[in-house]
């Protein structure tokens, strides 16, 4: 394939990138090219050796590498081109793209469409400004996961994990099975940040102490970390004086949040939603820049990989349509606004011509709530948690039934009386 004639360029080959590329190809895009900075297709899936992937998408309980394998095979079968060990360094709003690798040097392309599927990065210690010394032995949970599951190292044997996000809990189990002692998982909120499934299967199963409403207030150790001080926090997340305890450890893992990786999106003039950290998208997953689409964790951080792939497929299909017709057909635009207890909603705008699925996260855990979208949807829920994403389906008939002149719809989550 001549690199000068790319229909769809996909940036990143994780569960989003591969799904988007496959769908674009299946929907008629001829020349699809995936850029991947690592040595193989699959993005972070290769370091996720645990199961829980594909329960919805394939109806099977797969591990990360197995999930990646299914998609990678399809990529190969469909003849989608892949540039491995290639870093995209720039994209512009006219879709001019620059990438670098050690075989082709500096590559310049202007694909007819671009799909952003770069995923996310982890929040770091520096951003938390955790007081204390700066010794070796502090890793984000994802970096530790790569070291343990791909590189063949166990960073230490007495581990404290800050944050009960899914990655933190999964690493608690992983390190225990590799012979380390996980002394505590420390969580600032009164509930676990990730899925309950992980709380049970990673922490309870191995009797790993879970310290809710606690945080790390100091790091000790000059060369290598040797202890952390933890303290209980109040409902405003402030450390309560005189509750400090010191836990000796040689490793601290941080599982304190994921941030969609949108450096390239910014460069291309893509408007980001400050609530998600990702691009503002419509139901076709098109951004404000014509011909640039986005899907997966780069748009908003998902819980399940299955949703990542499904969302990216929307972007893939839209990109294919864009290439075929020069644009994606859209009717009337309605702005979605997050209301009470809703942190964000994706997509941020919808159109009235077809069914749409809305994804949202709440700000705080609440039981017995009513989830409402304007006047057209009202659904009772037993419990909502920030760590478990909500899905709301709106049918075309519900949307066309909206009052004339409706420009906005509010999504809210109120406590039921």
């Amino acid at each position, binding site marked *: 394939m001549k690199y000068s004639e790319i229909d769809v360029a996909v940036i990143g080959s994780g569960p989003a990138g591969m799904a988007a590329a496959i769908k674009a190809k299946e929907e008629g895009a001829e020349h699809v090219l995936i850029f991947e*900075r690592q040595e193989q297709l699959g993005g972070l899936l290769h370091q996720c050796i645990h199961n829980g992937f594909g329960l919805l998408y394939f109806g099977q309980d797969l591990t990360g590498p197995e999930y990646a394998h299914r998609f990678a095979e399809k990529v190969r079968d469909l003849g989608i081109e892949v540039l491995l*060990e290639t*870093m995209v*360094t720039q994209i512009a709003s006219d879709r001019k793209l620059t990438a*670098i*690798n*050690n*075989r*082709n*040097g*500096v590559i310049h392309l202007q694909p007819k469409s671009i799909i952003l599927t770069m995923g996310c*990065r*982890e929040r*770091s*210690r*520096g*951003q938390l*400004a955790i*007081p*204390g*010394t*700066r*010794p*070796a*032995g502090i*890793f*984000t949970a*994802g*970096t530790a996961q*790569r*070291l*343990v599951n*791909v*590189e*063949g*190292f*166990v*960073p*230490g*044997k007495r581990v404290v994990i800050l944050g009960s996000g899914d990655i933190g809990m999964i690493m608690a189990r992983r390190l225990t*099975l*590799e*012979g*380390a002692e996980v002394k505590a998982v420390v969580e600032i909120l009164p509930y676990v940040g990730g899925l309950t499934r992980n709380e049970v299967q990673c922490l309870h199963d191995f009797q790993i102490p879970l310290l809710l409403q606690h945080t790390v*207030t*100091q*790091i000790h150790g000059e*060369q*290598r970390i040797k202890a952390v001080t933890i303290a209980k926090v109040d409902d405003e997340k402030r*450390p309560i004086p005189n509750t400090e305890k010191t836990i000796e450890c*040689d*490793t601290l893992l941080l599982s304190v949040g994921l941030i969609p990786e949108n*450096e390239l999106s*910014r460069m291309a003039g893509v408007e980001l939603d400050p609530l998600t950290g990702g691009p503002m998208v419509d139901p076709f997953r098109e951004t404000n820049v014509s011909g640039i689409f986005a899907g997966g964790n780069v748009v908003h951080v998902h819980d399940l990989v299955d949703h990542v792939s499904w969302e990216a497929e929307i972007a893939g299909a839209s990109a294919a349509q864009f290439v075929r017709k020069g644009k994606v057909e859209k009717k009337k635009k309605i702005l979605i606004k997050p209301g009470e207890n809703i942190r964000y909603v994706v997509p941020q705008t919808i159109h009235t011509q077809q069914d749409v699925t809305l994804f949202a996260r709440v700000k705080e855990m609440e039981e017995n709530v009513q989830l409402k979208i304007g006047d057209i949807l009202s659904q009772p829920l037993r419990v909502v948690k920030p760590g478990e994403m909500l899905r709301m389906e709106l049918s075309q008939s519900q949307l066309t039934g909206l009052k004339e002149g409706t420009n906005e719809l509010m999504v809210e989550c109120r406590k039921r009386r």
Partner: protein
Amino acid sequence: METEVLIIGGGVLGAVVARELSRYKVDVILVEKEADFGWGSTKTNMCIVCQGGDTLEFRPEYHRSKLVWTSMPLMEPLCQEIDVPFKRVGELALIRNNEELSKFQKLKARAEKLGMNGHQFIDQDTLRQMEPHVTRKAIGALFDPNIAVVDPVRLTIALIENAIQNGVDVKRETEVIEIDRGVNQFEVQTSRGTIQCRYIVNAAGTSVDKIARFVDADDFVLYPIRGYVGILDKNLGDLVKHEIHMRPDEIGQMNILTPSVHGNLFFGTTMQPAMRGDYSTTRKIAQIGLKNLQKIVPDLSEKDLINAFAGFLMFRNWEVGWHECVVQPSRKVPRFINICIGYPGVSAAPATGREVIELLQREGLKLESNPKFNPTRKAPPVFNQLSEEKQRELISKDMRYGHVVCRCETVTEGEIVAAIQRGATTLDGIKFRTRAGMGRCQGGFCTPRVVKILSRELGVNEGKITKKGWNSHLLLYKSKELIEAQT
């Protein structure tokens, strides 16, 4: 080992002395305790140089101020000679009320009396144009066009490399444990053997007094002051283009926001006495820091912060004001020169280097010019700063420049290998020399890869790679090692 001059400390001051000495035909050894250069006070600061006007605050007739404004015209040419980045940003000292205005008027007058004529008063409208994001509470500013920023660690490394080029012997991870006075020489015990020397230049930063005490050469008292520096996201772009300075509302605070030479914004705040070696930052300091920062640019918030650290400055006479520094031969021990600037050390470096040469000569050191001295040192290529043509050329010569390892700062394997070839042996060494690990993700993505490259290039197991030398190993066990030990 025997030498003529031993320099203790490879921070910016030790390094500049080494480079100055390398202009002459004299045996010099420099020993540095850490695994790389500039890791003490040199690396934990705001990177601001050419501060002549600023230091007039601290009594112009004093030695420190003289060193700083003598250095002013020397810094840019030095940076060009040894190929380190230098950016003339200029300083805006914000004026919020008449009291501040009159203080600055006095400062300007003092500066002009000493021949510094660049300062200008800027009115509110011009200030808005120059810096639209700065607080509306400022009614104007005093503009100092001389202020610039550098990367002090790169500067230090460049000075060291130039010194090595010109014959200085430099030893890393070498700590001075004891010094004995002989008749006409010193016997210095280090963690890597004994060195005999005739002259000692003690540039050991926060350990200057400790080192001097080995031979009773300490005729000064130093007070450690800890400052706090924060680094903001590069995405803020050129939120401010100049170094912005706001007078502290409380003693022990400084409020400075400046672009760095690499495109981040740095802010500095809070200075307080602290236990030497206690680099820990507390939550309270972090909060004060942010509050002060918001006084300068109200739009900034906690989420813009990507890292923060503490740094030490060694001062004399803290209680009466920051007047003096130590750049002098010991009054008690011949041929022993102590150097400690406190603030601003990097700014004062060029003149300090020259002055130490004079001090050594006065102590009896005979110096003959080295005709082979080469003042030029070339930095290794910085891939993301090169033109595309140069990038292609580089990749075709060495494939490793086509492999991007640090995606946040676009640092290639080629640059990491070059840094290792020039002496980096640690993760932090790579970080300070190439910026890999200094970006948004703070090493989350590149750390495993950098460790692999270090291991490969140095020919050692990954388990031996450290974060910052000595015992700061990163990976304590190999897969299965722990379970095996348990069964």
